[in-house]
């Protein structure tokens, strides 16, 4: 795994200096993370790297994974949906299961640390087993419009923490504990984002039968209605009358989401008679393929109608691609409209902006370059590591607004 020095060539020198200084101050202290999955998903992916960076700085960083059972995972999936405002019934018995699983894990996991980060709702009830140290609830979910009942239950746990972290200011809630915003980040050296040579990209696309003879429009997303893949196809069709191009819709399987299966079959049905639409169902750990698809793209789309943070936008911007995204969730913080891409609110808007960029490749190139710089300054893992350590210091100086260390 690359060390901090590998990031010195990429990130702002100031950011590395601040991170190193914070690390020096906190060296020898213990930092525990608890979440519910050790692999798969952006949170686990970044956590692997963060733990390694913290250890290099001399911090005793540790990561524990909560172990659940099928009723627990079913219940936490419901919480996840409810926090994002979607209807999912959560019965009192389900909340009991949540508590029971947390209680039994608390007997297995050593929870002693100077700072404890509990990620997302699954392990949130571990707070009732706090022995010492500072405890922070780190929320990666969009909770801007949660179902009130689900939020009320969860807030009962969150209110016992020393602080809560959200990915964006819009996700914050009225809480009795201090709240902070730490946006997520990408790792520029990971398999999904590292540089790939043209030949390598070509080979990967060849392997999927995708030619590079036409401009490529690419959306990488789960097949879920909030990512609006059918809207993307509709926009592509509007563009296709004027520009010969190809559309790639690539995403992970939605096996745990019955609605996702239905969306995928509708997408396939829509794409059936058009050889220029390619629907790719990618297995887990397809990072290299995603990297190649984003690098091969002429334009990357993320036409979501509801979104958490939408880190695929930062991934594409990092590859110097202009991105057209829905103006929802965390996407507007990544796409500066007209500078690093375009924010759209409709299928027609997406089609209009695709045509504009296909007409004017220079504009796309400029936007891509700006986008990469925007990500370099704001959405790299070193910034997230710095934020976590700065937050640690802030919690030890509660009430102070300018903290000199």
């Amino acid at each position: 795994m690359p060390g901090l020095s590998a990031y010195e060539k990429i990130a702002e020198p100031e950011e590395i200096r601040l991170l190193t200084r914070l690390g020096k101050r906190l060296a020898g202290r213990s930092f525990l993370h608890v979440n519910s999955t050790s692999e798969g998903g952006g949170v686990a992916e970044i956590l692997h790297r963060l733990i390694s960076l913290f250890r290099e700085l001399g911090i005793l960083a540790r990561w524990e994974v909560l172990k659940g059972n099928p009723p627990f995972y079913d219940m936490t999936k419901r919480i996840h949906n409810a926090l994002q405002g979607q209807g999912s019934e959560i019965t009192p018995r389900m909340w009991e299961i949540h508590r029971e699983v947390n209680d039994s894990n608390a007997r297995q996991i050593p929870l002693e640390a100077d700072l404890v980060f509990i990620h997302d709702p699954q392990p949130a009830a571990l707070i009732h087993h706090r022995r010492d140290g500072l405890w922070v609830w780190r929320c990666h979910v969009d909770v801007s419009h949660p179902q009130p009942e689900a939020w009320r239950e969860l807030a009962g746990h969150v209110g016992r923490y020393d602080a809560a972290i959200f990915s964006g200011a819009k996700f914050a809630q009225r809480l009795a504990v201090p709240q902070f915003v730490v946006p997520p980040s990408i790792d520029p050296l990971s398999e999904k984002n590292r540089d790939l040579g043209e030949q390598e990209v070509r080979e990967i696309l060849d392997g999927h039968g995708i030619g590079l003879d036409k401009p490529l429009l690419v959306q990488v997303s789960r097949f879920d209605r909030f990512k609006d893949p059918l809207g993307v196809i509709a926009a592509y069709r509007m563009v296709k009358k004027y520009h010969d191009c190809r559309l790639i819709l690539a995403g992970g399987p939605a096996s745990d989401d019955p609605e996702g299966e239905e969306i995928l079959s509708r997408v396939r049905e829509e794409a059936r008679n058009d050889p220029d639409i390619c629907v790719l169902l990618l297995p887990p750990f397809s990072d290299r393929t995603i990297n190649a698809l984003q690098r091969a793209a002429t334009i990357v789309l993320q036409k979501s109608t509801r979104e958490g943070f939408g880190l695929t936008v930062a991934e594409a911007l990092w590859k110097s691609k202009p991105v057209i995204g829905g103006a929802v969730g965390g996407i507007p913080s990544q796409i500066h409209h007209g500078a690093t891409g375009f924010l759209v609110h409709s299928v027609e808007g997406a089609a209009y902006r695709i045509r504009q960029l296909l007409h004017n490749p220079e504009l796309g190139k400029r936007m891509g370059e700006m986008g990469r710089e925007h990500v370099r300054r704001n959405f790299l893992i070193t910034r997230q590591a710095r934020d976590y350590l700065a937050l640690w210091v802030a919690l030890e100086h509660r009430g102070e607004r300018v903290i000199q260390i």
Partner: protein
Amino acid sequence: MREEDRPAIQAFTFFECAGLLQPTGERARDLSKLLSLIRTVEPGVIYHHTHQYYLKAAVEAPEYPNDFAVWAAEYLEERALAEKLAGLDLYAYRDVEEVRRALIGIIEGYLRENPMPRPVRNGDEFFFNDAVSIVMEAGPRAENLPDFIEGLETVGASSLYFHFFEARLRLRRPADDFSVWLEQGLGRGDLARRIRGLDPYRYSLEGLRGEILSLLHGAV
């Protein structure tokens, strides 16, 4: 000894800072709520929304230099109000409470002459945030003017933000730290006066650095 090599009474320490955003959980959907929250939020919140523009590592600066003006333009779609808010002369104020009063005056004045704008859509509210700064030594210490120039050339942009904006309005120092040191530590009142003659709000942090450096290079 050349005048510029004369050692300072006390060395100057450059600081850099890491900012952390702290949402207050308060939001405004319309101008009336915005006004009432501007009246009551913590001073740090007013400071944050009028200053984060300068620290933010944006690749392209927003059209207006403070969050209130940006929101009035983009979401309320009240361009005239946005222009009035953008025209806030921050360098004229010595205290955040003065900035608060000026904002209230602009909005009240606008509402006397115009009907209340419609509320914004869900998700487009003005979200009130505060911010915490963690301030750390940047490394170089300046014993004389050439040291100071070298330090200023190498520190991060957040150092200028701290020594100019935070020092004056959050730490209530009488002026920016650079000019105070040049005057009191080095006896260079002439340079201090010229730096105080720069309105830092007219520049990006890099632009400000460039202006100060060219002024100091001219003095050695």
